[in-house]
C-alpha cells in the first residue's frame, strides 16, 4: 500500500486571546492517500477552516501550534521546514481555494497575472508563456472568452466565474493536493453544482488529492471518498462516505444529519434540533465536547474523553463516542416498525 500523501498527527492550533487560549483545533490526526478525496464537515467554529490554514501555513501571528503536532506531506514535515522550503511547497505541492470568490481575488490585479504569477515564481515561466497557459487554464475551468477575460479585473466577473478563476489559480502550479475551503458556500445552488462538478472532474483527470471543506453534508455525500466530521476542534467521526452515512455511529453526526430539512419529508414536520450551542473553546468540557448537547450521554461522557473506536464491520470507520449509535439495532427496529 502506498504511503499517505498527507498525514496529520495530533495537530493542534491554539489562538491567544485576552480571554485565554482558544483551542480552535485540538489533537487532530488523519491521513490521506494520493488521489483520494476527503470531505471535512463541520459547523462554523468547529475548526475545519483553521485546520486548512494550519496545513497551508496561513495562520495569523497570534496562533500557536503546540509541540507534538506533525503534518507530513509528501515526505516533508510541514511544521519544521524553514520558510523558504515551506514556500516551495505552496503552489506546486498544495493549492488552496477559498470560500468567498468576492474577496479571494486581488481587485486591482488582472486575472491573467493572478493565474500565472505562481508559475512565474516557481517555474520561471515567461510572461508570454504564462499568459498563454492562463488562457488555457481559464478555458479548462469553463470561462467563456478566456482571451478577453485574461486581461480583465475580478469585479468584471460574476461570483461563479470568479470561483472558476480561483480554481484556475490553484491549478496553475499543478498541485498534488488541493484544499477547497467552502468553495461554494457563497454561491447560489445552480452555480454551486457547476463548481463542484468542475472540482470533481479536475481531481479525477489530474489524479489530484483533494480536501473539500464544507458545512453541508449534502455536498460531501455524493462527491467524496472519505468524510471526516469535526466538532469543537476535533474529528469526531471518520470513514468512507458510504459507511459514515449508512452506519453513522457518533451521536453528533447523527444529530446533524437529523436536523437537516429534507426534500423527501412532508411539510411542517418537526425537525430534530440540537439543543444549546457549541462549547466555548477556551474552556471546553472535560469529557466529550458534545456531551452537554447530547441526548444520549451517560456518566462517562461528562468526565472522560471518549477514545477513538473502530467500527466492527469496517475498521477504517472510526469514531469517538462513549455511547455510540447501533445502526444494526436501529435498522431492525425500523424494519419491525414498518412491518407492524
Amino acid at each position, binding site marked *: 500500500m502506498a504511503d499517505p500523501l498527507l498525514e496529520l498527527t495530533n495537530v493542534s492550533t491554539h489562538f491567544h486571546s*485576552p480571554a485565554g487560549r482558544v483551542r480552535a483545533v485540538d489533537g487532530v490526526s488523519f491521513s490521506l492517500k494520493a488521489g483520494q478525496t476527503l470531505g471535512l464537515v463541520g459547523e462554523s467554529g468547529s475548526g475545519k477552516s483553521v485546520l486548512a490554514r494550519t496545513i497551508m501555513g496561513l495562520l495569523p501571528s497570534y496562533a500557536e501550534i503546540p509541540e507534538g503536532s506533525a503534518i507530513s506531506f509528501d515526505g516533508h514535515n510541514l511544521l519544521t521546514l524553514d520558510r523558504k522550503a515551506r514556500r516551495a511547497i505552496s503552489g506546486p505541492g498544495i493549492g488552496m481555494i477559498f470560500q468567498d470568490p468576492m474577496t479571494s481575488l486581488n481587485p486591482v490585479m488582472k486575472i491573467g497575472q493572478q493565474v500565472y504569477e505562481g508559475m512565474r515564481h516557481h517555474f520561471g515561466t515567461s510572461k508570454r508563456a504564462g499568459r498563454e497557459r492562463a488562457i488555457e487554464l481559464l478555458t479548462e475551468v469553463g470561462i467563456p472568452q478566456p482571451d478577453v477575460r485574461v486581461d480583465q479585473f475580478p469585479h468584471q466577473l460574476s461570483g461563479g466565474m470568479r470561483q472558476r478563476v480561483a480554481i484556475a489559480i490553484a491549478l496553475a502550479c499543478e498541485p498534488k493536493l488541493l484544499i477547497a475551503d467552502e468553495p461554494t458556500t457563497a454561491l447560489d445552488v445552480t452555480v454551486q453544482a457547476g463548481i463542484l462538478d468542475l472540482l470533481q472532474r479536475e481531481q479525477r483527470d489530474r489524479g489530484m488529492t483533494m480536501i473539500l471543506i464544507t458545512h453541508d453534508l449534502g455536498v460531501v455525500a455524493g462527491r467524496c471518498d472519505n468524510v471526516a466530521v469535526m466538532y469543537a476542534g476535533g474529528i469526531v467521526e471518520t470513514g468512507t462516505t458510504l459507511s459514515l452515512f449508512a452506519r453513522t455511529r457518533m451521536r453528533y453526526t447523527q444529530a446533524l444529519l437529523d436536523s437537516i430539512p429534507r426534500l423527501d419529508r412532508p411539510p411542517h414536520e418537526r425537525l430534530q434540533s440540537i439543543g444549546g450551542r457549541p462549547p466555548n473553546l477556551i474552556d471546553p468540557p472535560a469529557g466529550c465536547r458534545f456531551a452537554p448537547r447530547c441526548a444520549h450521554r451517560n456518566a462517562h461522557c461528562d468526565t472522560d474523553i471518549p477514545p477513538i473506536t473502530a467500527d466492527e464491520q469496517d475498521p477504517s470507520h472510526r469514531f469517538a463516542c462513549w455511547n455510540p449509535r447501533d445502526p444494526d439495532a436501529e435498522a431492525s427496529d425500523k424494519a419491525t416498525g414498518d412491518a407492524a
Partner: protein
Amino acid sequence: MADPTTNRPLHPARPTLSRFRRMRPITGKSGQFGFAFWLPLGWLLLITFCAIFAPWIGIQDPDSLDFINLQSEPNDAHLLGTDHLGRDVLARVIYGARVSLVVGFCAPVVGMLLGLPIGMIAGYFGGRIDGLIVGSIDTFLAVPGLVLLLLFSLIFGGSLLVVTVSLGLLFIPIFARISRAATLSFNSSEFVLAARTIGAGDFNILVRELLPNVVLPVLAFGLVAVASAIVVEGALSFLGLSVPAPHPSWGGMIAGGREHLEESPHISIFPAIVMFLTVLSFNLVGDTLRSRFADVREAAI
C-alpha cells in the same frame, strides 16, 4: 437587501478566522489601559489643576516685571527663568495653560454640537438635503482654515471668545463629515430597518437608534480635536492674533522668545515643552480610548 446590480449573494459568507482576529486586537495592548494611558492622563490632570487654581498655588504674577532679572536662566527665584521683560516663565506658562485648555476644550464642543446634528441629518435623509450639506462642507473646506481665523480675529478682535467660537466653526464640517459617515454606515443596517417596521418615526430613529452608535466615534475624534485645537490656538497666538498681549499664551511666549533663541533658549523652550507634552497627552489618551471604543463596537457587531 442584495443590490441586484452586483452578484453579491444573499446569504452572507461564513466568517473564517474573523472570530479569532477579534479576540486579540491587532494593535496589541491598545485595549488595556497601560502606562501610556495613565501617565499622560496624570499630566493632563496636573496641567488642568494648575490652570484652574493658578492664583492660589503660590506662583508669581505672570505680568509683573522683574527688571533686575531680565532673561535670567532658571534659578531658585524663577524656577523656569524669566523672559526678556523679566516676567516669570513658570507663571506665564501656567496662566497660558488657561487659554490653551479653554480653547482646546470649548472649540471642539462647539464644533460637535453643531456638526453632529448636521452630519446625521445629511446621512439619514440623503438626497437633496445631503447634497446641499455636503456641498457646503466642501466649500467651507476649500477656504484655508487659518485664513478664516485670521479674518475673524481681525474683524472681531482677538479675544478668547472669538478664538474659541471661530475655531469651533472650523470644526463643524469635520464633525459633520464624521457623523455623516457613521450615520451612513448604520443607516442601512437591519436594526434601523427593524425600527421602521415597528412604525418608529424619523426623529425616534435618529435619536434612539442612530445617535447612540454615532456618538462614540465622534467623541473619540473629539479628543484628537482637542489636541489640534490647542495646536491651532498656539499658531494663532504665535502670530499674535489670539488673546492680546500682554496676556500670556503658549504660542505667544514661543514667538516672544524667538529673538533670543541663541542666548536664552529657555524662554521659548519651556512653553514649547509644556505644550508638546499636553498635545501628546491628549493624542495618547484619545488614541487609547478610541481603540477601546473600536474594540467594543467590533465586538458588538
